Structures are given as C-alpha cells and as structure tokens.
C-alpha cells in the first residue's frame, strides 16, 4: 500500500473581496507515485487547489498534509525545495544559462560543483535535450517547447518527491505538446514521482492521469480513474464535460479488459491477440487496417481471457450502459 503523499482535509479558499469560495471543502488523498490530473474549466478552482499545495496561496480553512505533516508546520522554503513546480509561462530566469537555471536549487542546497554538473547533464538528457548543445544557452535562445523541457528539468533538479504542474503544456503547439505528454508519462513511470497536473484539456487529463480529479465551482465533482469516469460519470456536469471529448479520444482511455466478452478458453483461434491493457483505440485501428472482425484478449501469462468483436466495440463506444454493467 503506497503512502499518502498529499492529503487535503476540508480545504477551502476564499480570495479577499469575493463572496464565493474558489475552493470549497475539498477532501482528497493522493498516494505516493500516482499521476493525478486536475481537470476543470477556468474559474473551477483547479489552479487554486494546486497552488495551495506549495503555499503560493494559503488555504482559508482546513489543512493540507505532506506525508502526514501539516504543511503549515514546515519551513516554507525548505518545503518548497522538495516540490518541483512547473507553470505554463515556464518562468526561466532570462539572465542565467540553462545550466545555471537547472542548478539553482542544487547550488542553494550546497551540492558540490561536480555533482551539480553531472545532475544537469542527466536531467537534460532525461528531457531529450543534448547537454553539449543546450547547457550554455540562454532561455531566449530556446523555442517554447525547449523552454518547457528546461522548466521540467529545473523542477526535477533536487529530485523532488512531488511535482506540481499548472497547465505546463498549455501554450505549446499540438505536436510538441503530444511529444512532451508522452515524455512526461515516460519520466513518471521511470522515476515514480507523485504528480499533480492541472489542465483544462479533457484528452490531456485522461491521457496522463492514473486518476482524474474533476473540479467545478470549487468542489470535486469526481475523483476516479479515466475509465471509472467514462463508465460512470458521477453527475450531469461530469457527463457533459466528457461528452465534449470526441469518441475516438474516449477510446484511448478504455482498456480491452473493460469491454471484452467471455470466450471458451479451449477454443484456439488464429485471431490477432492483444493484452488486457490495450486501448480500444488501438484495437479499432487494427480493425480498420485489417480484414478481421474480432481480436482475442490475453493476460500477462499469454492465455486467452476474452475477445472483442467489431460489434462489441461499436456498442462500447456508446459509453454508459454497457460499460457500467
């Protein structure tokens, strides 16, 4: 059982001179190593929720715990140094080279020069920038996507347990964004960081998050896996929100095992086999590219556990009834 990295206990935030709560009574536990996306429209309180974690904003009431410790009791600067913080506008220091930007916190933590240099190289390689070419550059000599890669590297410099990301790819073109999303997933799998990631993009939230928090008017509407949300939207709002996502996108979060039909395990079939975790999107692609009307689903032990037919796939895409059955 993973430890709880962050716990919200009845957290509310009301800004000065407003009558409404930006965040109202949020309770939530985030376990270590999970990738949580916070999804909502502007004004939903998603960014406020995120920024209360590193105390850019202070909660009006309630408390937030970091590995069981109320964050109010922690020394603010030391606490923040344990958290990687990435924002949409990146905020690189323009008068410092890439190397100096990334090395800022390690330097404050008094790592020796050699260790810092090695760390900078390793981080640049992790975010797919060649250290030799990029380390001596200044931020203005980088493209938007490269800047955000450096921003990501800088946030991870002191090997934080927790990463807070506020629409980090919001200002980046679609193709670069897709690359960055995939790299972030890869980095998260590799380093097992706990990530809180705010976005207003439904597909991004569903693609990245192990679990998705849906915020609306300062409260959590639903906190579940992407599949759980598509299968059983908690309320009208969530149903409407996910309906804005196109059907093909939705297939990307649905896994083979969630819709497969039972089969007789004895039946040996030459049909194409997919894993239980395979997305319906890939299966659809297979159907479209090959003259087949079913695939077999096999578990990690390579034994067949179910099948998906063309008909079944069509039914499944009309989310709701079948999925929740």
């Amino acid at each position, binding site marked *: 059982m993973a430890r709880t990295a962050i716990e919200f206990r009845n957290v509310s935030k009301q800004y000065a001179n407003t009558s409404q709560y930006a965040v109202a009574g949020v309770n939530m536990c985030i376990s270590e190593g999970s990738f949580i996306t916070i999804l909502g429209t502007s004004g939903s309180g998603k960014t406020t929720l995120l920024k209360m974690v590193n105390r850019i904003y202070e909660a009006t009431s309630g408390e937030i715990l970091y590995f069981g410790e109320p964050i109010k009791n922690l020394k*603010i*600067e*030391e606490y923040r140094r344990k*958290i990687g913080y990435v924002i949409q506008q990146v905020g690189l220091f323009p008068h410092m080279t890439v190397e100096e930007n990334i090395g800022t916190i390690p330097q404050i933590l008094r790592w020796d020069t050699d260790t810092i240099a090695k760390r900078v190289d390793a981080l640049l390689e992790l975010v797919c920038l060649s250290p030799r070419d990029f380390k001596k550059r*200044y931020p203005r000599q980088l493209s938007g996507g490269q800047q955000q890669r450096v921003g990501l590297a800088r946030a991870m410099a002191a090997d934080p347990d927790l990463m807070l990301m506020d629409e980090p790819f919001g200002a980046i073109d679609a193709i670069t964004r897709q690359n960055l999303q995939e790299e972030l997933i890869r980095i998260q799998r590799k380093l097992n960081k706990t990530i809180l990631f705010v976005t207003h993009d439904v597909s991004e939230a569903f693609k990245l998050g192990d679990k998705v928090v849906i915020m609306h008017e300062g409260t959590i509407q639903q906190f579940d896996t992407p599949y759980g949300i598509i299968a059983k939207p908690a309320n009208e709002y969530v149903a409407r929100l996910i309906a804005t996502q196109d059907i093909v996108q939705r297939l990307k979060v649905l896994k083979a095992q969630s819709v497969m039909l039972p089969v007789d395990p004895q039946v040996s079939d030459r049909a194409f086999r997919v894993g239980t975790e395979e997305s319906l999107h890939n299966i659809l692609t297979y159907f479209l590219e090959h003259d087949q009307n079913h695939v077999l689903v096999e578990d990690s032990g390579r034994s067949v556990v179910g099948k998906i037919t063309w008909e079944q796939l069509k039914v499944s895409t009309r989310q709701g009834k079948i999925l929740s059955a």
Partner: protein
Amino acid sequence: MNKGLNMFTYLLKYYDQMLILLLEHLYLVCLSMLISLLLAIPVGLLIARSKWLSTAALSFFGVVYSIPSLALFSFLLPAFGLGKMTAIAVLVIYNQYILVRNTVTGFQSIDASIIEAGYGMGLSTKYMFFKIQLPLALPVILGGIRIATVSTIGIATIAAVIHAGGLGVLLFDGLRMNYLPKILWGTVLSSFLAYLANHILLSLETKAIEKSRGECRGDTV
C-alpha cells in the same frame, strides 16, 4: 578667430580657477546623486509592491519635478540658507522623480511568472532580490541614474545663483560681465561633463541589458 584666441588665453590665465569650479561642480553632482540614490532606491522598492501607493507617490514627485529650479532654490533658501546645502537639497528632490519612477518600473516590469517560479521553487526573499530581481531591474534603474545624472549636471549650474559654486559661476559671471569666453567655457565644460557622464553610464546600461536578457558577445541567435 579673435574669440577663439580669447578663449585660449582665458584658459591659460585662469585654468586653476576653472579646475576648482569643475571639481566643485563634480562634487555637487556626485554628492547629490549619492544621497538621491540612497533615498530613491529603498523608496522605489517599498512602493513598487502597491499599485495604489506607487501611483500616488509618483504623481507627487511628478508635481515637485514640474516646479522651476530657480523657484525651488529660492523656496528652500529660508530652510537651508545660501550655499551648497540648499543646492544639494534641490538636486536630490528633483532626482527623486526620475529615480523612484525607474526603480518602480524596473521591478514592476519583471515578468510575474519569473517571480512565481522563483518563490515556488523555494528561493528565499533575499536570494530572489539579489540574484533575480535586481539583475533584471538593473537596466531600467541604470537608465534612471543616467538621465538623473545628466539633468543634475545641468541644473547644478543654476546653483551658482545661491552661491553654491560650480560651473554655473563661470556662466553667470560671464553673463553679468557680458564676457563671452567665460560664458563659452561654462557651457563647454558642463556640456562635456554631461556628455561624459551619459557615455559612461550608457555603456554600463548596455552591459546590464545584455546581462539581463541573456546575451553575450559573439551571440548569433
């Protein structure tokens, strides 16, 4: 030709007095710039945090700045008397508008995301000020110092009227005696001083701009 010769003979004859007046002028300018900076930078920093306060303070300094210098000299005479004290007080008061405004603008023009990222990653207020905010605001502050210095060199000539000395003595004596070489030397020397100060401070400013933007020599991008 004749006048040029006059100027030359005047220089040969009175170079020691001229040097004293030049040094006096430099003293007035340097001392009032020093005091001005010691006041304006903290004031600018203090009011930069509040939009309301900075607008109010800058309007006030703006009004003061619009008072003609002769009027301000005579206005402060009862308080500080004749001489350098009053002159320096007036020069310091004038400088506040330019210096405070540029300090405020310098700090307020830093991209908010840089500040948020800095604090968010756990930088201390002191580190943020000296390593991030000051280097980024420096070009604008230096620009203010440059303009203030040049204008101080000019206004300081008028301080001769209240017996504060400096190059203004040459100018006003020349005017009173209708003696051209004196007027010309006063003009040439104070213009030269202003030009030199502008040149030196401009090169510092350019360096600060390059530094704050992350440019370096041989930069091709």
